[in-house]
C-alpha cells in the first residue's frame, strides 16, 4: 500500500515528532503551563497566565502543569488512559495549589487577606484525537481522569476542572499543515488525520 494512497502527498508525523512540536510550543510559550488567580499570578506574562479567582468567596488557586508528552496509538508509554485507534493519550503531573486564607481580614492590618498556599500533586491522564480544522492539525481532548484519587466523585470534580484547563492549554497548540509537511509545495489538505503505528497521518495535494 502506498503512503499517499489516493492523495498526492502524505505526511506521517511520528509521536517523537509530535512531541518535538509540543516541546517547541511550551518552550516558547511557558505561560500555558502555569495558570493562577491574581494572588498567585498578578498579570499574564510569557511565563504564566492569570485567571480569575473562584467566586463568590474569591478562592485563589494555582495550577502548575508539567509539559505533557503525547503517546500515539498503539500504547507505548503505558499512560493511565491508553490510546485507542486514531487516538493519542497523555499524562501530565499537576500541582494544584489553593490559597488558604489563614486568618480573617482585620481592618487594623493592611486590609489584605493573608493567603497560605497549600498544594497537592496529581497525575492527570487524558485521551484525545487529532482533527484537521482548515489547514491545521488540532488536538481535541476526549477523556480526562485523575489518577489514584478517592473518593471517585472528587476525581470527577477535579477532572472536570482540569479538563477545562487542558483544553484551553491545547486550544492554541495548532500545527499548520505547512509544518506537518515541512513546507513542501502549496497544499490543499485532503481528508482527516488518522493515527496508527505511533504516527499521525495527514494527506494533501500540491496545487
Amino acid at each position, binding site marked *: 500500500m502506498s503512503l499517499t494512497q489516493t492523495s498526492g502527498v502524505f505526511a506521517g508525523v511520528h509521536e517523537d515528532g509530535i512531541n518535538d512540536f509540543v516541546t517547541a*510550543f511550551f518552550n516558547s510559550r511557558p505561560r500555558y503551563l502555569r495558570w493562577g488567580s491574581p494572588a498567585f499570578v498578578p498579570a499574564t506574562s510569557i511565563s504564566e497566565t492569570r485567571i480569575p479567582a473562584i467566586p463568590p468567596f474569591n478562592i485563589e488557586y494555582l495550577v502548575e502543569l508539567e509539559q505533557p508528552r503525547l503517546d500515539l496509538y498503539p500504547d507505548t508509554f503505558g499512560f493511565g488512559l491508553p490510546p485507542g485507534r486514531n487516538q493519542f493519550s497523555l499524562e501530565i503531573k499537576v500541582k494544584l495549589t489553593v490559597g488558604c486564607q489563614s486568618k480573617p481580614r482585620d481592618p487594623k492590618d493592611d486590609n489584605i487577606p493573608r493567603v497560605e498556599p497549600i498544594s497537592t500533586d496529581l497525575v492527570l491522564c487524558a485521551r484525545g484525537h487529532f482533527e484537521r480544522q482548515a489547514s491545521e492539525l488540532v488536538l481535541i481532548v476526549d477523556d480526562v481522569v485523575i489518577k489514584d484519587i478517592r473518593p471517585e466523585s472528587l476525581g470527577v470534580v477535579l477532572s472536570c476542572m482540569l479538563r477545562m484547563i487542558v483544553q484551553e492549554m491545547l486550544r*492554541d497548540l495548532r500545527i499548520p499543515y505547512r509544518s*506537518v509537511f515541512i*513546507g513542501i509545495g502549496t497544499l490543499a489538505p485532503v481528508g482527516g488525520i488518522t493515527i496508527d503505528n505511533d504516527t499521525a497521518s495527514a494527506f494533501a495535494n500540491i496545487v
Partner: protein
Amino acid sequence: MSDIQVAVDEVQAGQLVSDAQALLGTQSRSGSGSLGPFTASWSASAGFSGGSVDLRAPDIVRISNMNMNFTVGIGLSIDLNDFLPRLCIPRICIPIPFLPDICTPRICLPPWPTIPVGPVNHSGTVNFTTDFRLLASQSGSNWNVAIQIVNIPSLSLDAISALIVTGLIGAVSLALLAVPFIGPLLALAVATIGAVIGVAAVTGLLGPILGLFLNGLSFDVYQQPQVQQVLPNMGPNDPAVSIRISALSAQVLVSDEDELVLDADIVPA
C-alpha cells in the same frame, strides 16, 4: 524512524519538477568554438520545461521527453583570402623594334578583406530523456533536495544544425555582396565557404554549447529554511513557535506506487 516522513506520488513529483524548472529559469552562456576551419563566437541561453517523471528506487528520477528551449547566436569572421585568388592585371609588354619592350606593371587589387558574418540567431527546442539523482543537502540556512543529472544525454541536432547552416550561408552571401570587386567570384566564394560550413560542423559546435547547459544540470525540488516557524508571534506573551529540521534525506520508495519520500528529523528551535 524519522520524526516526519513526507511522500509525494509520481504525478505530484512531476509538479515539483515543473516548478523547479520554472524556478531555474533561463541560463545564459557565451564563448567561442570551432566551426569547421573557422573560429565562431557564440552566445546562447536555455531553459527547461515539460517531461514526464518516472521514479526509480533507490534515488533516481527519470525524466522523459524534457524540452530544452534554447536560443543561440553564432558569428564568424571570414578571411576571404583563404578562399579567393588575388585579382591582378598581369604585366603586358609591347615589343618595339630596335628599342626595349614597353611593359605595363603588374597591377593587383588590394587583398580581400576579412568579413564579419552574423551573428545568426536561431531558437529551437531539443527533446531528451535522462536520469537525475536525488540529493539532499544543507545550503547555508536552508535544506535543499535537488535532482542532479547523472549522464549527459546525446542530443539529435542534425535537423536544427541544417537550419542554422542555411542561416549562416545566407548571412555569408549577404556579407559578400558588400565586398568590392567580388562580382565574378561571388558564386565561387559562396560555394567554397558553404562547403566547409556543413551540418556536421554546426553540430560539432552546437553540441558542446548545449552540453554546457546540461553538464551538472540540477533542479531544486525542495528548498526550505532549516528553522521553520510553526506559529507566528501572537503578542508580547505569545512569541513565535519554531522548529528546526536537524536532518533530511530523500529517496524513492516502491510499493504499489513509486513515491518520492523525504525523511526529516526535527527539534524545537
